[in-house]
C-alpha cells in the first residue's frame, strides 16, 4: 500500500487530485476489510458450521419425519406442518409447556430475590466478608450441572441429608424428589443460579452513585424507600439484562432435572427440554423432537420480548 501511494504522489496537479484520495481511502477500507476477514475467516466458518448449521438443520428437521431408526431413518420425507399440528394437539406437550413456565417463574423469582438480597447485603461490607460469601455462592455456580444434580439428589432423596436432619427433630422422612419434584428442581436451580444474579447485581449496584442515596436520606427517606425509589430504578437496566440472561439459561436446563428426577414421577417434572430428549432420543422421533425445540425457542422469545420492552420503557425516563 505504501508503495502504491508513493507512485501516485508525483501525479499531475489539477482536477485529478480529487481522484487519488478517493481510491486511496476506498482501498484502505478494502485493505481494512481484508485485514479483518483473514483472521476472522476460520472462526467465522466454525461459527457457521457448528452454530448456524445445527440451527438450520433443526428448522429443516422439524418439517420432516426424520427418525433415529426404522424405515424413516432410511427414507426421510418432508411432512410439512404435521409435527406442529401434532404439537398443538399433544396433551403431554401442553403439560410440559406449563411445567416449563412454572420452572422458569420459580427459578427467576428465586434467583432474582436471593441474588439481589445478597448483592445488597454485601454492599459496603468488608472485603473479607465479601470474599468469603462470594466464594461460597460462586462455588455453587462453578460446580458442573451433573454434580449439582447429584448433590441435590443426595440431599433430597429418601435416605438423604434433609431427611436425616428432619429425623433429628422427630419428623418423618419422605422422598422429596418423588413428592415435590418440581419444587425440588426449582430449588436446585435457584441454588445453582443465584451466584450469577448476585454478581451482575453487585456490579450494577457499584454503579449507583452514592450521593443520590445520601441526598435521599438527607431528605428523610427510609432505607426501604431509598431502595425502592432510588436504587432499584437505577438498577432497572441491569435487572432486565440479568433477567433475560437467567431466562435463557433456565429455559434450557436439562442435565440438572435429568439427574434429579429424569422428568418423573410420571411426567410431573418433564419440562420442554426433557420432553424433547424423550421424543427425539428415547422414542427416536427426531422430527417431532426438533419441533419441540423450536417451541422452546418461542417460549424463550416471548420472555425476551417482555424484557426488551422493560428496557425500552426505561429510555424516556
Amino acid at each position, binding site marked *: 500500500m505504501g508503495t502504491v501511494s508513493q507512485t501516485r504522489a508525483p501525479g499531475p496537479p489539477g482536477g485529478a487530485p480529487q481522484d487519488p484520495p478517493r481510491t486511496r481511502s476506498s482501498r484502505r477500507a478494502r485493505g481494512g*476489510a481484508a485485514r479483518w476477514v483473514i483472521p476472522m475467516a476460520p472462526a467465522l*466458518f466454525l461459527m457457521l458450521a457448528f452454530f448456524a448449521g445445527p440451527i438450520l438443520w433443526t428448522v429443516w428437521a422439524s418439517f420432516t419425519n426424520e427418525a433415529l431408526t426404522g424405515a424413516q431413518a432410511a427414507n426421510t420425507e418432508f411432512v410439512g406442518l404435521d409435527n406442529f399440528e401434532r404439537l398443538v394437539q399433544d396433551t403431554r406437550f401442553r403439560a410440559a409447556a406449563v411445567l416449563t413456565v412454572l420452572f422458569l417463574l420459580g427459578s427467576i423469582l428465586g434467583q432474582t430475590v436471593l441474588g439481589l438480597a445478597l448483592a445488597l447485603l454485601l454492599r459496603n461490607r468488608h472485603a473479607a466478608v465479601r470474599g468469603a460469601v462470594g466464594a461460597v455462592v460462586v462455588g455453587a455456580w462453578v460446580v458442573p450441572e451433573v454434580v449439582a444434580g447429584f448433590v441435590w439428589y443426595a440431599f433430597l432423596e429418601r435416605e438423604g441429608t434433609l431427611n436425616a436432619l428432619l429425623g433429628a427433630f422427630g419428623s418423618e422422612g419422605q422422598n422429596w424428589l418423588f413428592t415435590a419434584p418440581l419444587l425440588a428442581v426449582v430449588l436446585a436451580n435457584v441454588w445453582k443460579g443465584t451466584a450469577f444474579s448476585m454478581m451482575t447485581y453487585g456490579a450494577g449496584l457499584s454503579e449507583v452513585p452514592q450521593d443520590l442515596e445520601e441526598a435521599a436520606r438527607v431528605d428523610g427517606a427510609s432505607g426501604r424507600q431509598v431502595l425502592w425509589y432510588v436504587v432499584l430504578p437505577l438498577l432497572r437496566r441491569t435487572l432486565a439484562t440479568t433477567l433475560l440472561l437467567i431466562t435463557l439459561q433456565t429455559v434450557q436446563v436439562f442435565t440438572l432435572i435429568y439427574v434429579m428426577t429424569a422428568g*418423573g*414421577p*410420571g411426567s410431573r417434572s418433564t419440562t420442554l427440554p426433557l420432553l424433547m430428549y424423550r421424543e427425539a432420543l*428415547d422414542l*427416536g422421533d427426531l422430527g417431532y423432537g426438533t419441533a419441540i425445540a423450536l417451541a422452546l425457542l418461542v417460549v424463550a422469545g416471548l420472555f425476551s420480548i417482555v424484557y426488551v420492552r422493560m428496557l425500552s420503557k426505561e429510555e424516556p425516563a
Partner: protein
Amino acid sequence: MEGTGPHTPRPAAVAAAALALALAATGCAGGADDRDENTVRIAYQKFGTFIAMDSLMQKVKEEFEADNPGVTVELQAIEAPAEDYQTQVNLMNGSAGEAPDLIYQDSFTINQDADAGYLMPLDEYFDAWEDAGLFSPQEAEAVTSLSGERYGVMLGTDVRGLWYNADLLEQAGVETPWEPATWDEVLEAARAVKGEFGDGVAPLNVYSGTPAGEAASLQGFQMLLSGTDDALFDEGSEKWVTGAAGFTESLEFVHTVFDEDLGLDVQDALDTNVGTVNNEERFPSGELAISLEGSWATQSWIPEANRPWDGWEDSMRFTPMPTREGQGEGATSMSGGWALSMGAHATDPELAWEVMTYALSRENAVKFAIEGGQIPVRSDVAEDPAFLENAPLAEEFAALVDITGFRPAYSEYPRVSIAVQEAMEAVMLGEATPEEAAELYAQEVEGLVGPDNVTGGS
C-alpha cells in the same frame, strides 16, 4: 487500476481460501475411509447385573487377536440401561465412520434397524456356516426380518416366570413348592406375605412404568396380557389391538398390586435400577418375596456375579406364571433374547463374520449361557454337560419353551411398548384408572401406527 494488481490481496479471495483451509481442516475428521480394515469394532451393553457379555467379549478379543496377528478387536462397552444403549448405538449407526462392525442387539429392535438400513443381511454367511444347522427354528424366527432376510445370530433366549423366596413364603404360611394356578392365587400369596411381614418385605415385584423400560413392558405387562384372551397384536388381521378386555384386566392387576401395597414402594419401582437392586439386594437380604422376572436372574447370584449369593439355591425357586383364570395351557411365558448383528458399513464383512462366529462358538456359547443365565439356542450347547451341570433350573425353563410367546416383530413395536409402559405408570401413580389408561393407550397407538392399523379386541 492498481487496486487489481496481483500484489493486493482481495478480501473475497482471501475469505474463500481461508474457508477452503478450514474445510480441509475439519473435513478430514469424519469419513469411513479412515477406518482400519483390520479392526473390528464391537458395541455391546454392560450394565447392572449384566456383565456376561463383557466377560465374553474380553475373552474373544484376547483369543482372536492372539490367533490372528495384525487384527484388532475394538471393544466398545456401553454402560447404560437398554434403552439408552440402543439410542447410543443408533446414533453411532447414523454415521458410517462411527458405526460398529458388530452390534450386540436386542432381537426386538432388529426389524427397526434393518428398515433403517443399519444392518447387513447375513443369509449368505450364515448358510455357509458349518454350525448353522445347530440353531433352533425359533432362533431363526427371532432374527429374520419381515422381508425374510436374516439380520443376526442369537446368543441365547430366555423365558419368564415367578421367582420366589421359599423361606419367606413358608413363614407366611404359603405351601411350597408354590404352584399358583390363577392370578388371584398369586395375589393371595402376596397378601399372606404382607400380613406376616408388614412393611419389612415387599411381597410381589411386577416391573412397571417407563423407568424400568422394556422390563416393564415384557416381564411386567406382557406376562399378564399373554395370560388373558387378548394380545398386543393380532396376527390374523396384522393389526395392533386396542380396547381389548385383557388389556384393562392386566392394568387392573397392576393397579391391585400398587393399590394394596403388595408391590415395591412406587418410588422404588420407578427407579431405573430397580432390576439390579431387586436381584442383588432385595432378594438376597430377604426383602422381596416374589418377583415376576426373567430366567436370567441367576446371573446376579452365581459365583461370577458382581455380588455372588452363596446358597441362593436353598431359598430361590422358580414357578411358571399362571394365566388369569388358569385358562389355556394354565401357564404363560414370554421370550426375548439378544443377538449379534453386523453393521451395514462393516469395513471388512468377512473378518467381522469370523469374529462373530468365534464369539458364537460352542465353547463361548456355553460360557455365555451359564454366566448370562440364558437358554441356549444351539442344540449342542443345550446338551453340553458343562451347561447342564451349571444350570440347575434348565429343565424348568425348557418346559416353558413350548408355551412361550414372542413380541410382535414389527418396526413399530418399540414405540408401542413405550406406550404400554406409560399406561402402567399412569395406573401405578393413580393418575388414571385402568380403563382410562387403556383409553389413553388406544389413542397413543392409533397415533403411532395410524388408524388403519388398529383393531378392537375380543
